Each structure stands twice: as structure tokens, then as C-alpha cells.
């Protein structure tokens, strides 16, 4: 059975290859910093389970020191030029899309197979099925592409390293925020927020409570970069005690729409790195390091309107059904 641990070994080996190639790359603007950064991620993926809590904590401190104390440069390994790419695109034709499409097809197919077929259950482990299937899809697509395109041996790792460098330390942000969420949970930050909000703002009508819950979800998501982290805090603080218990809102409606109000916050925050910062880096946007980069600015009008819509929908639906 393929489990998360197998996927971690694969990811670890990939980061190890990135680190080794960076170490050998004399033209890299920040050779040592990037070598150590990708090397430490390789260590985490390969040996993280053996390091223990404190060992991993020290590893995090080292990664933060590397990522936060200076710029991480981007490698420029030898690759094909613009004219060459147009010429190759014409020669290869639309078949070039096929390896790229293998990845989602295997990811989706594998997820469904693992859920509904015995063979799938035998092949793919039960936790994080989609991610394991995604990794499997990448592996199959990788071998298909290499067999067909016959690139130089180091080309996949070199091209991958170029893209990974352009993402930089933002690659670590979702994992770090999830860990911060664990610390907040252990210290009962949620309970304290709830007491603070209800003691400061008098939420005396259903509408006020709905507004406080939805806006609170969006704001806390902006801070934490993730609606999943905001949901237990704000729902325990305002959603359940006030909107549901005091004013009689339907819990399923309140929670479903409350979560979506949180997603409006996700669209507005640079803390949601994998949605808002990683694409800005991958698309070479000139303002990718700004707090409100081109992706967030493109999302902001939709997010603002949708927050109002969610407040309106919760108020209109939760007390009626």
C-alpha cells in the first residue's frame, strides 16, 4: 500500500536533488542560503518522524533563520530560449498537453478508486488519499514525459529547482500557519477571543450577531491565512452561542455560510501563501513581494461583494429554515 510516508520519501529526494544542484551552481545569487533551505526541507521530509517534537522545532528555527534574514535568489540553470520553445511547441503539437493532464486525471481517478474499489483501497493508503494520488500522478506523468521527450538527465531537477526558487520561502508558510494554529488551540486562544468579543460589542439583535460572526470569520482568516483556523475560534465565540443558541439560527446554515465568509478573508490576505503568494511568484508578477499583490487586488472586489452577500444570505436563510 502506498502511504503518506512513501510520498514524503519521494518529496524528500526531490528537495535533496534541488539542494545538491544548487550547491553545484556557482552562478546562483544566494547559493549557500538556498542549498541549506532546500536541504533542511529534504531532512524534514526524509527524517522528520525520527527527530521528535523539539528536534523539529529546532529545524523550524533554522529554516526561519535562513528564510527570514535575507533574500532567497532564483537559479537560472541553462534551459531552452523563447524562439526554441515556439519551434519545439510547433513540432511537439498538442500531445504536449497529455503529460500535464495525466496528473489531475490520476489524482482524481486514484481518489475515487481508493474510496470505491478494493484494488484502489489496496493500492492507496486511507489518509490524505488525494495527495497520495496526486503524487502518484506526478510520478507517472514524470516517467511519461521523460520517455517521450528524452531530456538531458539533470533537466527535470534543474527545471524544478528554477520553479521552486521562484516560490521561495512562501512554500513553507501554509505548514507554519497550521503549526501556529496548533499552538493557539493548546493555549485556548479561541475561548479567550469569544469572551473578549462578546464583552466589548453588544450583540443584541440577530442581524448584529450575523454581521459580527461573518466579519469576524473574514478578519480572523486574514490574520491566520486560513478559514479552517478561524472557524473553530469564531464559531465557538459568536456563531454557536449567539447566532444559533440565542437567536435560533439553523446550525448547518450558519456554519456553511460562516465558513464561506471566512473564504472571503482568504482571498484578501498574503498570509494565504499557497493561494495568493505562490501564484504571484509563479506568474512573475512585478508586485509579487507587495502586501497586496496583483492576485489579491484582482480578487478584492469579488471578495468584498461576496462577504456582503454571505451576511445577507445568512440573515435571510438561517432564521427561516
Amino acid at each position, binding site marked *: 500500500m502506498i502511504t503518506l510516508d512513501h*510520498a514524503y520519501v519521494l518529496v524528500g529526494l*526531490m528537495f535533496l536533488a534541488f539542494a545538491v544542484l544548487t550547491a553545484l551552481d556557482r552562478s546562483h545569487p544566494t547559493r549557500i542560503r538556498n542549498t541549506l533551505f532546500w536541504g533542511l*526541507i529534504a531532512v*524534514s521530509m526524509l527524517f522528520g518522524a525520527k527527530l521528535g517534537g*523539539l528536534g523539529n*522545532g529546532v529545524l*523550524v*528555527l533554522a529554516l526561519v533563520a535562513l528564510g*527570514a534574514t535575507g533574500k532567497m535568489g532564483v537559479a537560472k540553470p541553462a534551459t*531552452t530560449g523563447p524562439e526554441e520553445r*515556439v519551434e519545439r*511547441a510547433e513540432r511537439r503539437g*498538442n500531445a*504536449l*498537453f497529455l503529460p*500535464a493532464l495525466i496528473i*489531475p486525471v490520476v489524482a*482524481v481517478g486514484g481518489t475515487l478508486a481508493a474510496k470505491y474499489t478494493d484494488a484502489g483501497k489496496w493500492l492507496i493508503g486511507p489518509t490524505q488519499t488525494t*495527495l497520495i*494520488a*496526486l*503524487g502518484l500522478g*506526478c510520478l507517472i506523468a*514524470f516517467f511519461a*514525459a521523460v520517455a517521450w521527450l528524452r531530456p538531458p538527465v539533470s*533537466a527535470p531537477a534543474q*527545471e524544478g529547482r*528554477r*520553479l521552486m526558487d521562484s516560490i521561495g520561502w512562501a512554500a513553507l508558510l501554509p505548514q*507554519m*500557519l*497550521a503549526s*501556529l494554529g496548533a*499552538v*493557539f488551540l493548546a*493555549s485556548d486562544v479561541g475561548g479567550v477571543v469569544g469572551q473578549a468579543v462578546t464583552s466589548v460589542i453588544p450583540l443584541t439583535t440577530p442581524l448584529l450577531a450575523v454581521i459580527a460572526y461573518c466579519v469576524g470569520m473574514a478578519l480572523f482568516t486574514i*490574520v491566520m491565512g486560513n478559514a*479552517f483556523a478561524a*472557524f473553530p475560534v469564531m*464559531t465557538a465565540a459568536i456563531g454557536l452561542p449567539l447566532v444559533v443558541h440565542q437567536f435560533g439560527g439553523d446550525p*448547518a446554515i450558519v*456554519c*456553511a*455560510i460562516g*465558513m464561506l465568509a471566512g473564504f472571503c478573508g482568504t*482571498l484578501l490576505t*498574503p*498570509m494565504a*501563501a499557497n493561494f*495568493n503568494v*505562490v*501564484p504571484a511568484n509563479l*506568474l512573475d508578477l*512585478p508586485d509579487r513581494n507587495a*502586501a497586496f499583490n*496583483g*492576485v489579491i487586488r484582482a*480578487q478584492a472586489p469579488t471578495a468584498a461583494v461576496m462577504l456582503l*452577500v454571505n451576511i445577507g*444570505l445568512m440573515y435571510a436563510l438561517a432564521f427561516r429554515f
Partner: protein
Amino acid sequence: MLVLLGILVVVAGFAARLNPLLTIVVAALVTGVLAAVVAGADAAGLWRAGVDTLALFGKAFNDNRYFHITWLVLPVIGLLEREGLQERARMLIGRVRAATAGRLLLVYLLIRQATSALGLTSLGGHPQMVRPLVAPMAEGAAEKDQGEISDETRFRIRGMAAATDNIGLFFGEDIFIAIGSIVLIVGFLEQAGIKVEALHVSLWAIPTAIAAFVVHGVRLWFFDRTLKAVAAKGGEV
């Protein structure tokens, strides 16, 4: 109240434009140590609380390694880009006469939202879909529609391509009953002593999903006009 300083650290670090990785670690340590202060710990106890918090953070960090599995797409995408994948995407869309950047992204919004609602969230995404395919196609459509486009226009299109992927995903996935957020809601309510069906929760994500399609769809419908106005003024609109 003291433990809330951790949240304040995140906000302050962000306002001061500090590196978010640094801000997060500091916020975690501040929260853990202040929780010990509230509990009335002495100096040695505070040091122990700091070490314990670091260990807790490290354990959670290790438990959340699965975020990195996504990066396995990078060597494949890089390899295909080397052979002209982005250029091919542009050529393909250049042949579709009716294609414009706005219309193409509108179709992508519909597909992304519909497939996410069926639980097929991994069909899209920034490294595997937006960078190699959707953004180049939207740029190609705009070039066919408007001729040469400025860098300003190009970056607007790329930003909108990424935004459309996110919006389609966020306001589509909650309709699917087995997605993380629905599981979280059902589990949370169960702990609070309220039993709800996953299907019942996901049903109430539908009104917002429709509204999101209308709101962002209207913006995309007028996106070509916005781009032309940007081009005419040669800058911000």
C-alpha cells in the same frame, strides 16, 4: 486576555512587513509563554514553557508536511515548459475565433467551480494549471483580440487568471460533502452536541456558490473592456 498577544504579534509583524515565517514563530512562542504566565509560572517555568511550545510547534510542523507533496508537479511542469507548453497553449487558443481573455476565464470559472463542486479540486491549481495553461491561454486570447499587449495588461490578465482559479475553487468545493471544510463543520458541531448531516451542510453552500459565479462572472464579462481601457490610458484604471 494575555494569550491574545500572539494574534497581535501576527498583525504587528504583518504591518511592519517582517518576514511572515519569523512573525509566526515569534507569535507561537509568545502565546505559549504567556499562557504559562497566566497560569502563574516562575522564571524556570517560563523557560520550560518556551521549550515545550517549540516542541509542540515542531510536532505540528512535522504532522503538516503533506503540504509539500504538491511540489512534485514542478519537475514535470518545468520539463514540459522547456519543450514549449506555454507557447503551445497560446497557439491553441489563438485558433479559437471567439476567444477573448474575459470569455476564456469565464469558461474556466464555470469549469473550475463545477468540478470543485463534484470534489475534483485537484483538476486546477496554480503550479499545474494556471501557470502552464490558463494564464498563457488568456494572454494568447487577449493578443488575438487586441493585438500586441503591454506588460501592464499582461500582468492584469495573469492576476485575474490566478484569482479566477481561487474563486472557482473556494465557492465550489463546499458543495461537495467529503471536502475538508464540511468535515470540519460536521465534526465541530458534533463536539458541541449538535448532529447535522454533511449533505445538509453542503446544500447550504449552494446559494453562495451561485452568487459567487454571478459576481465574478459579471466582472469577467466586463474584463475585456477593462483591459482595453487600461491599454488606452496606458496605465492604471
